[in-house]
């Protein structure tokens, strides 16, 4: 698996990616000089990776400063240094709770980020590794959401607790945990309906689900937010709201196999101190992978 997701990021991206995303490579090709144009193009490239204009301005300023102080010789050295700095910022001393046992994990996020798919892949991987997995489908809002989860439960060969569409998601969570106690599951994954962080009533509903889970779960409870890598600056607002309402323990960054670079994840880690635990780099089950800060940082700056 070493290096392969990095390869994936570069492979199969085709023409579109070349157009826009290889910018830092273009930067390199224009020569090693650290002139004004270099810095301005570097800024553009990082903004283009969704890192956010405020963060980028700050980072580039710091980089210019250290380029002068440390007498970094050329563009190559600057970009290497940048990748190291970003990797350092992304590295948090946090547990990968998906690997702990037993644990109950609640998956949350806005609509369309790939929550159910991510949950399915986690379930399949854990079940293949011999863990006793139980799924709960507390997305009782979206049409056919529980069918989608049922398909994953079949694929992973793990049981799922479902609720009728329109029923109280907290009740499904309750049933799931009752079942977990009976069967002695050591990894309980509960899917929730996608919701925009601005919907107060839906966020309150989620807080209630969390309270019920907290009360009923024998295992420690963790909240994993699924964040779409194509999300722009609103991603930070989303994460903040979910963190305020539920307390986030980790991020799964999905859809990294496209042309999007997921720079918003850096903003989330910086601002909230919540670690990225998994990245989604493709549609296959194995394409959900552990997050490696150094590799991600390199991909972000185009190395």
């Amino acid at each position, binding site marked *: 698996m070493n290096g392969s997701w990095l390869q994936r990021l570069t492979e199969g991206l085709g023409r579109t990616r070349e157009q826009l995303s290889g910018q830092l490579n273009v930067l390199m090709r224009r020569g090693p000089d650290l002139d004004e144009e270099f810095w301005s193009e570097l800024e553009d490239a990082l903004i283009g990776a969704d890192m956010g204009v405020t963060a980028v301005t700050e980072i580039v300023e710091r980089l210019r400063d250290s380029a002068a102080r440390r007498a970094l010789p050329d563009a190559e050295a600057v970009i290497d240094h940048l990748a190291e700095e970003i990797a350092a910022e992304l590295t948090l001393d946090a547990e990968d709770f998906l690997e702990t046992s037993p644990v109950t994990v609640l998956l949350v996020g806005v*609509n369309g980020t790939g929550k159910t798919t991510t949950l399915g892949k986690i379930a399949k991987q854990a079940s293949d590794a011999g863990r006793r997995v139980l799924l709960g489908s507390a997305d009782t809002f*979206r*049409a056919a959401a529980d069918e989608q989860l049922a398909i994953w439960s079949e694929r992973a060969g793990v049981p799922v607790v479902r609720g009728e569409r329109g029923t109280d998601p907290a009740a499904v969570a309750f049933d799931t945990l009752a079942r977990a106690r009976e069967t002695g599951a050591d990894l309980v994954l509960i899917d929730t309906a996608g919701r925009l962080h601005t919907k107060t009533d839906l966020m309150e509903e989620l807080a209630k689900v969390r309270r019920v889970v907290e009360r009923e779960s024998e295992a420690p409870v963790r909240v994993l937010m699924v964040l779409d890598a194509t999300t722009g*600056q609103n991603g930070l*607002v989303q994460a903040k709201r979910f963190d305020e309402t539920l307390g986030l323990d980790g991020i799964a960054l999905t*859809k990294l196999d496209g042309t*999007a670079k997921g720079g918003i994840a850096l903003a989330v880690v910086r601002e909230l101190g919540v670690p990225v635990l998994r990245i989604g780099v493709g549609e296959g089950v194995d394409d959900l992978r552990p997050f490696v800060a150094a590799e991600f940082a390199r991909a972000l700056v185009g190395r």
Partner: protein
Amino acid sequence: MFQNLSDRLKQVFDKLSGRGRLSEADVDAAMREIRMALLEADVNFRVVKEFVARVRERCLGAEVTASLTPGQTVVKIVLDELTDLMGGTESRLVLSGRIPAVIMVVGLQGSGKTTATAKLANLLRKQGRSPLMVAADVYRPAAIDQLEALGRELDVPVYRGAEGEDPVRIAKAGVKEAVARMRDTVIVDTAGRLHVDEQMMEEAALIKAAVKPDQVLLVVDSMTGQDAVNVASAFAERVDFDGVVLTKLDGDSRGGAALSVKAVTGKPVKFASLGEKTDSLEPFHPDRMARRILGMGDVVSLIEKAQEVADETELKEAGERLRKAEFTLDDFLIQLRQVRKMGSLSDVLAMLPGAKGLKAIRESDIDERALDRTTAIITSMTAKERAKPQVINGSRRERIARGSGATVQEVNQLLAQFAQAKKLLKQFQGGKGKRPRGMGFPGLGGPF
């Protein structure tokens, strides 16, 4: 979260007050702020560059430099240019006279394609057409089930092919089915991928060639960042679409993707999707979007939001009693809940232009919890107590405080304020005194 453009420019131009003409350096300072605002809204950085260059040109003209209020003039120019760039006035869906008319919906997974398909069907049905939806998204688990469930809800038929059938054949058969069932409009929901890939483009192009749609609509998530241009230009090149459906605008993203897509492909946004319900698809308004991108508030949307969440009969009854000065704590509770339904108070206030400049909001010392506490106190009262607060004696106060987790003082405070408000209301009814300015309840602050 982010500062709006007016406030930013105000800061720039305030420094200049007292001086006469604007210098080129002053204009450049303003341009830097415009650039920041657009980038924070996720407008693609290349689009921003071009846009700022154009605005700068105009701003160096006499219009701005001679203006007594250069800040406002710059804002006006930016708004005008943005609105123009996004297509000026609304762009409508044009269907030919062909029966059945065919609409094809394309986009990435998770953009809201299937939901948008159903919303479109609902909208067209309201306009007197009889749509049929075709589920050609054969790859995503349960996508077809989702469309069928939505179709049942809307009472719009859905055509699904046999298991494992080729999407191009499904699309073609769907059109035939529409003819057989005498439906005059077909909406084809095509398969999305996680990202732009060759296979998806190929398939979409084949479906397009097979059903020859009147309109191809690209669904774009308004929360998309810088990548929006990649997606849009790939689709424009391979499939060529006619317009865009911008989804999830009921969130608080600035939606700069709308601008990027239009600037890069020249295709207009035709619809805005503003909610989870199937009736929340609306024609797109470039002028409103321009204000939103700049963070300048959206009064029209605020009013619409208020209308959307307000339970009309509840409010009518409360209003009736208000007129008769019979306003009870129950009515007050209804109003509190209506306010809550619109989102957090700071969100609601942020939609008002200029509200972000208010000190109270900047420091976000609006006590959201006070609203919740007030709600808790009122819901801990019996029906009788709510209707006739004068019966609330000492022991009742204690019970209410215990029930709501508040202190007796807080209960007292609420009752005193309510009595005060009622008195004001009576004066108002009697024609004496002025209209009460806000009710002075905790958390509600002054009038807004």
